[in-house]
């Protein structure tokens, strides 16, 4: 068939979503602010002592990152479904899996990556030593990729439902348990100054599995949701 190749189409999707994001910066910034506020609550609610905060820092960082990326998922497909863009994807003749993968990648660029880049700041506030930041950054990069992919499936599935929000979290959070466990473990090891190769490999494995299967499931879900 004539027309642009898959790669071109995917690049267009990425460009379009990035441009939309620059027009509506609040949508991108809100999850980041949420991430910062949630982590701020722990010193206030628990203790300002850095030594104690350091002990719970892995859990706090990962749970906050998980919740922040949940929050950003709502907007992943919903608006494009409402204004018919997703339908155009389906009838465009391009493989829907690739287009959705491009959308998910953009979503990660706009939430997962900034969350990761914010982690040193937030982690520093929780008493995480400077030497651990490299390990934390690499675990968050791999972990947020998986979170975006799992979230894309959940966002696709809730397209057909009347109310998204809470249901989306109920669907997605249990599936994200392995990412949370491996990620928090990697962060813990990084703070302790140990080698974090094992959990990083596992995070990488989950991300690769997600990259392979999640777009297929998301495409199936979006097709059902659009009928």
């Amino acid at each position, binding site marked *: 068939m004539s027309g642009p190749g898959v790669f071109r189409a995917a690049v267009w999707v990425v460009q379009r979503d990035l441009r939309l994001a620059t027009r509506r910066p609040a949508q991108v910034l809100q999850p980041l602010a949420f991430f910062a506020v949630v982590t701020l609550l722990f010193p206030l609610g628990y203790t300002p002592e850095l030594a104690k905060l350091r002990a719970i820092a892995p859990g706090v960082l990962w749970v906050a990152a998980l919740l922040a990326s949940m929050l950003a998922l709502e907007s992943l497909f919903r608006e494009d479904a409402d204004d018919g863009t997703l339908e155009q994807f389906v009838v465009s003749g391009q493989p829907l899996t690739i287009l959705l993968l491009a959308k998910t990648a953009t979503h990660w660029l706009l939430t997962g990556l900034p969350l990761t880049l914010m982690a040193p700041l937030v982690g520093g506030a929780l008493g995480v030593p400077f030497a651990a930041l490299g390990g934390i950054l690499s675990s968050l990069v791999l972990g947020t990729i998986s979170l975006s992919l799992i979230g894309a499936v959940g966002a696709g599935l809730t397209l057909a439902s009347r109310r998204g929000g809470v249901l989306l979290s109920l*669907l997605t959070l249990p599936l994200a348990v392995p990412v949370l466990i491996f990620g928090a473990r990697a962060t813990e090891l990084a703070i302790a100054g140990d080698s974090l190769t094992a959990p990083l490999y596992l995070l990488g494995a989950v991300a690769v599995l997600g990259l392979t299967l999640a777009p297929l499931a998301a495409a199936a879900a979006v097709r059902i949701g659009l009928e």
Partner: protein
Amino acid sequence: MDWTWFHKFGSPPHVYRLAGLLTPWFAWPAALLILGALYGGLVLAPPDYQQGDGFRIIYVHAPSAWLAVMIYAVMATAAGVGLIWRMKVAHAVAASCAGVGAWFTVVSLLTGMLWGKPMWGTYWVWDPRLTAQLILLFLYLGFMGLRASIDDVSRADRASAVLALVGVVNLPIIRYSVEWWNSIHQAPSVMKMDRPSMPFDMLAPLLAMLLGFSLYFGAVLLIRLRAEILRRERNASWIREELT
């Protein structure tokens, strides 16, 4: 090969009648096995040398925990069949499975907690098996929540089927990650059951109970499936003929 027998399962009236015929064949053996196993487990089996009579809750706990996982597999298989062959009846099976599976998960969690109190001194420990079971309960709740939130039956069927398949891929990963998570946070738990070394008069009621529970699940599934088919086909003419 002749596939007629398989395609017949796509016909709601056929499955409705078949389920009605099969129900007693599951229900009666289930009742007999469960009653027999209860007698065997509560009366005949000797008390455990460490746990005394407290261990006897295993006769409800272990089979329900096992079924909770098995039902998820049945549900995902039915959902997959429904998705691939666009078989409405298979989706009805998956929908009927969810509630039963969730209840077995709750039963296994509650009996586990009741067992934990005398044995561990607390109702809840973050034991990997308990935690994985709790996550399984949330997977069931998510499946049912997604179904309930979509008005159109056919879309609810297929969306929840995709979720069930995603869950079944993820379930082993969750189980292993939880086990790995726990093994580094606390020492191995008190509960170490050497199953093969269990004496026969303790083991036999357990196996009988397992079979009994499975048959009971079969019977309940068939009854719920009939109800589900009736609900879905409520405007079909064959139901009027069937019921008059």
